[in-house]
């Protein structure tokens, strides 16, 4: 059959290779940030993340220890120490002037004039010698070009989740969770009953109502911001969790009703009519038959709404986040970090990945329902 279909082997190869390239292109951006979140600030700023898997040659500036700690050795003073804690670093060259950073090989001794010398050995130990005047003030500056093995660290995550700085994202994480749970469940409660009525009950105006809901599906929520904020302020809800839960409920309802109605309308008519004949009330039919059968659609919508509320920025900053900063959500926190910590990629990358972790887990474990929901929601 494959042969009849005109599939030439050459074409097969071309397809395989182009798909591999596309997949790499698509995953590349995310991997970049993920890798960066496991590197130290120095590593990130000294080399691109794509070099993180290879030993890197870096030129860094060092200073010897302060001359206060000098020891007298005969008629000269000596300061000794070690520059690398990491013993695997491989020193290629070093120098004492910024204009010629690779003047000496490891083990060589640099003559700094008038008998002052500096020696850097292959193992990273150095020895700075000179007379009383020379070995004073600040430590001697020198430059080292070394190859360092790839190294990854969990310190960024430790800092962002458990550290004491104001960048800490754990509070925002729990705030986001607090927004998300009710904002996912409450619309389902409202929508399921309405969807049942629209799918299986006959009443005048039903078609009109469905059209109304289809229309609301695309109403931009931007229109709702000011009127609803005004409403919330006037009835005393103000800015806060209750407000954001209600707002998400309202904005999620059209999709919920639409998805669930389409699904419920597709359930077999016989089951429902048999139950009616047997004397079941609508309420019983709904609870005992429709609801369990609609589980896939409920799961689809729940995943949608979860992803949407977890990733939302606009609704949160309008209805929830106030100037106290106690109710900040992760998206808001990250936007703030982008402003204040624009160059600190170890902080940004880690914060972004903390916020992405939960949606990505949900995505990979429940992809089936997500796809089904998408299909039901848009192909119809």
């Amino acid at each position, binding site marked *: 059959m494959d042969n*009849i*279909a*005109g599939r030439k082997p050459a*074409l097969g190869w071309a397809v395989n290779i182009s*798909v591999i390239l596309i*997949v790499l292109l*698509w995953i590349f951006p*995310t991997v*970049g*940030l993920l890798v960066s979140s496991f590197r130290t600030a120095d590593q990130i*700023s000294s080399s691109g*993340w*794509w070099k993180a898997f290879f030993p890197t040659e870096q030129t860094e500036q060092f200073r010897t220890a302060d001359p206060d700690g000098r020891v007298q050795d005969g008629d000269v003073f000596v300061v000794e120490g070690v520059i690398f804690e990491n013993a695997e670093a491989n020193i290629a060259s070093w120098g004492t002037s910024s204009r010629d950073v690779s003047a000496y090989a490891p083990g060589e001794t640099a003559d700094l004039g008038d008998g002052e010398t500096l020696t850097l050995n292959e193992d990273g130990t150095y020895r700075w010698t000179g007379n009383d005047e020379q070995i004073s003030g600040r430590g001697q500056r020198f430059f080292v070009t070394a190859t360092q093995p790839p190294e990854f660290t969990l310190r960024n995550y430790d800092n962002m989740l458990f550290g004491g700085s104001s960048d800490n994202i754990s509070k925002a994480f*729990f705030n986001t969770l*607090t*927004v998300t*749970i009710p904002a996912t469940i409450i619309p389902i*409660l*409202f929508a399921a*009953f*309405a969807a049942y*009525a629209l799918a299986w009950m006959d009443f005048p105006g039903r078609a009109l109502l*469905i*059209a109304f809901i289809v*229309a*609301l*599906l*695309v*109403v*931009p*929520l*931007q*229109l*709702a*911001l*000011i009127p609803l904020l*005004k409403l919330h302020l006037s009835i005393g809800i103000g800015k806060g*969790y209750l407000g954001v839960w209600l707002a998400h409920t*309202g904005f999620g*309802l059209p999709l919920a009703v639409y998805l669930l109605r389409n699904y419920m309308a597709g359930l077999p008519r016989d089951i429902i009519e048999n139950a009616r004949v047997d004397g079941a009330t*609508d*309420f019983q039919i709904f609870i005992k038959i429709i609801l369990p059968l609609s589980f896939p659609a409920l799961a689809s919508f729940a995943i949608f709404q979860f*992803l949407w509320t977890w990733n939302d*920025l*606009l609704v949160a900053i309008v209805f929830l986040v106030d100037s106290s900063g106690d*109710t900040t959500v992760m*998206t808001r926190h*990250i*936007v703030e970090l*982008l402003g204040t910590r624009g160059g600190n990629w170890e902080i940004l990358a880690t*914060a*972004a990945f903390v916020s*992405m972790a939960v*949606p*990505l887990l949900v*995505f990979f474990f429940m*992809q089936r329902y997500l796809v089904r929901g*998408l299909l039901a929601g848009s*192909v*119809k």
Partner: protein
Amino acid sequence: MHPAIQAVLTVGVAVIAAIAYFYLSNLLLDRVLFPARGKNAGRNINRANMIRPWLFLFPALFALCLYLAYPVVETIRLSFTDRVPGGYEWAGTSNYQQMLREPKFWEALRNNFFWLLVVPGLSTLFGLIIAQLTDRLSWGNIAKSIIFMPMAISFVGASVIFKLIYDYRPAGEEQIGILNAVYLALGGAEPQTWLTIPGLNNFLLMVVLIWIQTGFAMVILSAALRGIPEETIEAAIVDGANPFQIFFKIKVPQIMPTIMVVWTTITILVLKIFDIVFAMTNGQWGTQVLANYMYDKLFRANDWGVGSASAMVIMLLVLPILVWNVRQARKEMR
């Protein structure tokens, strides 16, 4: 009390309240208002069944009207009024006139137009190509999964991801943004601050949304491709069509309605695009879009009149799609 506990309690209360509402209101209807016994039993059952749908619909309808329908009307009203101390004042079309005089508004409108032109088209096109390429691949599902993954990532998270790609370091320093690194490797003279280059920066922001939305288009179109009847393709093969002809002349025409649905869905999203611009450039350097312009007016300039007027512009742009959707839905109902 920690807000998280509050959240769990709220969920509990909401579930109990919802079930109690539906159960008790049904009980009230059947037992007290129109009991199905006595001499009017038949009439009562009919009446109860006329009212019951509205019991089921009431909470959802109430929330929909309050949170979506009422704001539309209220925004129209606000766009024609000015806020004055202690109330509102009829302002005629002055808000709209002020908005039309602002160059930032025209910039936003122009950019939204470009977004509209580029993003839905390219996302749908890429989605279609990938859907076709992965269709018969043994590892197609894994590939699709990876390309679909950005759907789970927030716009803000995606903005961080792409800001690292567009990152700029002064010439002479090691470039950590891959775009600059590639640019220099290909012979570029010096590193660029990509997000400040007018014209190009808009396109770089669009890339973020295309990256996210291609997966969506791919999933839908992939299902549509699978739904094409085998016979039509077999007939084409028998007639000697090559794979490209099969794709363009047999498959694409058959899934055209689905392509339209994908295209309109992404179009609506593009009209409302906010987070990406807000997080990456905040509308500087000529990247303003309508939703961010509106946010600026509402919450930075505190000008509700002009803010509402610009919200109405977004609504007007969405309106044709809204009408089309409603007509499609009504057609299917029949």
